[in-house]
C-alpha cells in the first residue's frame, strides 16, 4: 500500500522546530479545503428528544488519537477531511497531527520547499509553514487536530458541523481562519503510531431488531449479500445496495408510525435497500429498523468508500 505514513524524516534530518508551548495560543488559516472539510468533535449527545442529532466525528477513534498526539483532551474540535486535499497555514508555531485514512502529509516552508512529515504523529509547524494533505490511498476520512483545539462557537455542548440539521459551524471554506485554544503539553512520544489501513472488504456486526420481524429471513439476507456502498452516502447515512430486504406479507404496505432512530440504526425504506444512519442521522424516522450496527463498528463504515464491499454479520 502506497502511503508515506512511516516515511517521515528522522529527527536528525529535521530542522529543530519546537512543539506548541504549553498554554500558548495560536491560529491557523485554511488555504484549501479539499472536497469537504468540516469542524468536528465528539458530538452533542443528550438532545435527541428535541430533534437534535448526535453529530460529531464519524470515526471518533481517529479524532481522539489525533487529539492525544498533540496533547489535547480527546474531545477537542478538529477537522474531518473527506478525501484529503486540505491545506492550512500556521499563523504562529503550532503542533498538529493527521490521523484516520492513511494519506501523505507534507509541511511546506514559507519559501516553497516541502518535506514529507507523515500522518499519525505530531508535526510542529512554524509560523508561516503550511500543512498539506494528500489524497488517501484507502479509506475516506482524515482527521486533523491542532494543539489547543479549534475555537469555534459551541452549540449544545459541541463544535461539530451537523450537515443534516444545520447546527454548528458552516462547512470549512478557503480562507477560514481558526483561533486555537490554549495548548496542552505535547506528549514526548507523539507518534508515529501504527496506521490502520481500511480494508477493501469491511465486515461489521448487526444486532437484529427492533423490526427484524417485518422482513423475510432478515439474518439470511443480511449475511448472504455482498453490500455495495452507494455514492449517495454521506454523514447522514451509508447507503447499501444489494439483494433487497423483502417484507413479510402481513407487513407489506404497512406504515410504521415515526420511531426514534440513532447512529448505527439500519433503516429499510420501501426499496429494500438499507441505510445505516451515521452521526448526522435523524432522531426519528418512518421506516422499520431491521438491526443496529454497534457504535464501535461505525468508524469502519465511516471509512467505506462508495463502491466498496460491506459484509454484515447479523446476530
Amino acid at each position: 500500500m502506497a502511503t508515506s505514513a512511516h516515511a517521515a524524516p528522522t529527527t536528525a534530518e529535521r530542522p529543530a522546530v519546537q512543539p506548541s508551548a504549553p498554554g500558548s495560543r495560536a491560529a491557523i488559516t485554511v488555504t484549501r479545503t479539499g472536497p469537504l472539510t468540516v469542524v468536528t468533535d465528539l458530538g452533542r449527545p443528550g438532545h435527541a428528544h428535541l430533534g437534535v442529532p448526535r453529530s460529531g466525528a464519524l470515526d471518533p477513534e481517529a479524532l481522539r488519537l489525533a487529539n492525544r498526539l498533540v496533547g489535547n483532551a480527546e474531545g477537542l474540535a478538529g477537522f474531518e477531511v473527506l478525501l484529503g486535499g486540505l491545506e492550512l497555514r500556521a499563523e504562529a508555531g503550532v503542533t498538529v497531527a493527521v490521523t484516520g485514512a492513511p494519506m501523505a502529509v507534507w509541511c511546506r516552508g514559507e519559501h516553497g520547499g516541502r518535506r514529507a512529515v507523515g500522518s499519525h504523529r505530531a508535526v510542529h509547524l512554524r509560523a508561516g509553514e503550511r500543512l498539506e494533505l494528500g489524497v488517501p490511498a484507502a479509506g475516506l476520512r482524515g482527521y486533523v487536530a491542532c494543539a489547543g483545539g479549534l475555537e469555534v462557537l459551541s452549540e449544545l455542548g459541541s463544535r461539530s458541523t451537523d450537515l443534516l440539521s444545520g447546527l454548528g459551524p458552516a462547512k470549512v471554506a478557503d480562507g477560514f481562519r481558526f483561533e486555537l485554544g490554549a495548548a496542552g503539553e505535547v506528549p514526548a512520544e507523539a507518534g508515529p503510531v501504527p496506521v490502520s489501513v481500511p480494508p477493501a472488504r469491511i465486515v461489521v456486526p448487526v444486532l437484529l431488531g427492533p423490526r427484524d420481524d417485518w422482513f423475510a429471513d432478515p439474518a439470511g439476507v443480511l449475511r448472504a449479500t455482498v453490500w455495495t456502498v452507494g455514492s449517495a452516502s454521506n454523514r447522514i447515512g451509508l447507503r447499501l445496495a444489494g439483494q433487497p430486504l423483502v417484507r413479510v406479507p402481513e407487513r407489506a404496505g404497512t406504515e410504521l408510525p415515526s420511531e426514534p432512530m440513532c447512529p448505527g440504526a439500519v433503516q429499510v425504506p420501501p426499496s429494500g435497500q438499507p441505510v445505516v444512519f451515521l452521526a448526522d442521522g435523524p432522531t426519528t424516522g418512518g421506516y422499520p429498523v431491521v438491526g443496529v450496527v454497534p457504535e464501535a463498528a461505525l468508524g469502519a463504515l465511516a471509512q467505506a468508500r462508495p463502491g466498496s464491499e460491506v459484509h454484515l454479520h447479523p446476530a
Partner: protein
Amino acid sequence: MSPAVRLLRFGGSGVLVELSSGAEVMAAYRTLRAALADGTLGDVVELVPAARTVLLTVAAGTTPPHEQVRELLTRPLDALGGSAGPGEVAGAADVVIPVRYDGTDLDLVARTAELTVPEVVELHCSAEYTVAFCGFSPGFGYLTGLPEPLRQARLDDARPQVPAGSVALAGEFTGVYPRSSPGGWRLLGHTDQVMFDPTADPPARLAPGDRVRFDRVR
C-alpha cells in the same frame, strides 16, 4: 391500569419501549424522564419519545436497564411518582404561539374539511395541543390534539422550501417549522417566534409533554 409494555432490543445499548397509544407513550416518557432525573436509571444518554415508542440509550459498552424500565412501566399508572399530574412531563411548559393565519394551503384545508377559512382558523386556534415528540429538525414538535376535520393528508409533493416559522398540519399532527426546509405539510400560517436557538437555554421552544395553544394575530 398498566399500559401494555413491550421491550425491544435496539442495538447493544438501546431499548425500545413499544406502547399502544400516544397517551401511553406520554405516560411512559414522563415516568422514565422522572426516573432519569432521580438517577434511578443510571447513565442514560438519550431518552426519545416518538409516535408509539420510546427509545432509551446508554453509553456504548454498558447495558441498558431493561429490568428497571420494565419495573417502572408495569407499575399501576396512579402509583407513579413525581409532582406532575397524570399525563404530564415534569417540567412541561404551557406555550402560546402567536400565528398569523395566512398560509398558502388555507383554502385547500378548508375545502378538504368542508369548512370556511375562518372556521378552519377558529378550530385550529381554539384547540389545546400536546408536544408528542420532536424530530425532522431540531425543535420541530409533532403536536397532537388536532380537531378531527383538520386531520388531512400530506401534500402529494413536498415543497422544496418551506419558510421558517410556518405553521402547518399533516395527518394527526400540527407543528411549526423551526427553520426553512423542505416540507410536505399543509401550511396554515406563520409565527415570528424563534422555535429553536442552539445558544439559548432551553434551546427549543417546544419539548415533549409541553402543552401548546396557537393565538391568532392579525
